[in-house]
């Protein structure tokens, strides 16, 4: 192999290994950082992961919002019309958080089955329903009408 070819080969090896490393890096952190969505019913059924961040969504139950008196910690109930879970959050709720409306929360389950939210999301449109929430509400509605 002459010198020029050797250099070219070295170059290609560097290139390929660089791309391979970044691809591995990307795919690995991709797998670690994917967040799945679960409606309250799936959580009650034990389908949600323990010790891993995920997202939950549903309607905030009317009159369920309770604040602690001296901190920013609050609790509310989240329902998909079939099952209900308790969500605890410390911080400021988004502008469009209202009881009776659809929200999505990101966080983990604690040992007692309370969802400890790191972030609560409500979209900037009063008519907007997070699509995941709309879907899970729809499927529960169908289930209920089939049962009866």
């Amino acid at each position, binding site marked *: 192999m002459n010198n020029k070819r050797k*250099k070219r080969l*070295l*170059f290609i090896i560097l*290139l390929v290994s*660089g*791309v391979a490393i*970044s691809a591995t*890096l*990307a795919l690995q*952190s*991709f797998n*670690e*950082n*994917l*967040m*799945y*969505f679960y409606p309250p019913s799936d959580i009650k059924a034990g389908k949600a992961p323990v010790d891993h961040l995920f*997202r939950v969504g549903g309607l905030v139950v009317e009159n369920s919002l309770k*604040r602690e008196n*001296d*901190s*920013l910690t609050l609790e509310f109930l989240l329902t998909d019309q079939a099952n209900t879970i308790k969500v605890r959050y*410390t*911080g*400021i*709720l988004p*502008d*469009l958080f209202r009881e009776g409306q659809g929200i999505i929360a*990101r966080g983990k389950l604690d040992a007692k089955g309370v969802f400890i939210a790191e972030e609560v999301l409500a979209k*900037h*449109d*009063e008519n*907007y329903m997070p*699509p*995941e929430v709309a*879907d899970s509400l729809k499927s529960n509605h169908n289930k209920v009408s089939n049962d009866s």
Partner: protein
Amino acid sequence: MTPDIGQLALIFALLMAVYQAILPMVSSFKGFQAGIATARYLASGQFIFLCISFACLTYAFLTDDFSVKYVASTSNLSLPVLYKISGVWGAHEGSLLLWALILSLWTVAVCLFSRDLPAVYLARVISVMGFISVGFLIFLLALSNPFEKLPFTPADGRSLNPLLQDPGLAIHPPMLYMGYVGFCVAFAFAISALISGKIDALWVRWVRPWTNIAWCFLTIGITLGSWWAYYELGWGGWWFWDPVENASLLPWLVGTALIHSLAVTEKRGAFKSWTVLLAISSFSLSLLGTFLVRSGVLTSVHAFATDPSRGLYILCFLIIVVGTSFLLYAWRSPSLKSESGFHFISRETGLLVNNIFLVTIAACVLLGTLYPLILDALDAGKISVGPPYFNAVIVPIALGMFAVMAIGFSLRWKNDSFSRIFKRIRILLVFALIAGLVLPSLWLSSYNVYSSIGLTLASLIALVAVTTIYQQKKSYSQISGSVWGASIAHIGMAITIAGISITAVYSHEKDIRLSYGENYEMAGYSFKLIDVTQHAEKNYQASTGLVEVFQKGQLIAQMKPEKRVYDIQNNPMTEAAIDAGFFRDLFVALGEPLGASSWSLRIYHKPFIRWIWLGALLMALGAAIAVADRRYRKTAART
């Protein structure tokens, strides 16, 4: 009456575009001179009709013509005039009309400034742009007509989303679209090059200024968007890895790669087919961005189902454009031969590595943006890919790129040596290490590896760029525009990197409950909530807080964060108060009332955050200065 004229003008514009797409292209193959010459006139005609159409829609907004469905759904009697005008592009239909108008503006600009271009070549470029225009105008007329009438005229409109009632956002979409659509010029030139099978230095000199201008606008557009999200959404962040943001970042990344690859093609006649591929890709990603943002696919793949025809149309158009150009590329690109080789250590290699980094970053962003959509479309589960993914992947790759960026800028074309580079940068490296390693430990509260690497590389990039100007050994006026432009853009990037390195690590953020008269200490500042008062404005009700900020016992700022409830849409809105400074921003947002005399507040201390946007604006300025390079004017003056 006016809306009907607007509608009619839109139809005429479509007719012009159809002729523009077909006639010059066919004539260019048949050698039919009269047909080739029509390109200019058809493009101008289309532009005039689109201007009329756009003017009619603006008139309908200004005169509150609520018989037009689009006006009724995005405007309102009490809306201030500025937002009536920006309301024209405040929603789907109008923003597409703006897209078409800007595309037409670019086409006319190409006609005006490319007089020395061979007529056949110009005809093909104009034709390709005409084809894109046809696609958008059919979409406008058939599926998202801004002039659609309501069966009855409502007394008042539904009003513009309060979030969009902001001067920054009024000019954000036009800037962004100027960038998106601007890549269409490079795309059209690339397609024409593939058809003729030839790329020479002259071709690159035509393409480079257009690409720079488009990139300049896109940079400003993205910066405005980031700045707007910072102060208007009340979250205090500057980048959220939101799919809409990613949609604008993708063409920017590939466009940046294109600018650098074009440099190699012009100077050395190498990377030709790679340059063409990047030109096609950057515009394809612009189209993809438009598709993602405008089809409703982002709220949900299933929201697609509420108006499947729109999403389906853009998807088909995207497939036709991207598919045709890649087929053409596969068929013709082997005829584009590089004219020169280069050694392992050379500026060519540096720029090649830069391109690989940029394209890799773009691929990672694309994966994180599209994968959830694809999975959802296949009903394989609902997932979201959040900032942790993007930060984990992109930060290390970007740091690698910045390292190459610093060294690469000092490399020579064709053949260079490590020893020369080392001699050139060793003193600068010492300074950079001091700035990155020593200064932060003296001056910032704690030590962070990523931040330190970021600051070192930023300093090195800036120092190399500044010394490049000195090394020219010419008077400032003799240094070419492209050297000035590149140096300024690199200094801008360095400032942005420095800003990100500090803000991302050393910001303080706290949600806090405060009663009237109570204070909270953060980063040497004391925030005291005085009170919150209620008052009514023209189209909203507001609660305004008064927060006094003290530093070492001195009152340094009175901040007035607001909570607004708009009358028409009844949406609450947070207007954060920001005390801006060159070295730090203080940010206070009102949360919600907790009892009679206490509120929840969000308080941030953001050091160096302005540097992010300041650097981005310098990058845009650099791109603009490079366009003014004499050698581009020379080609224009030849005729």
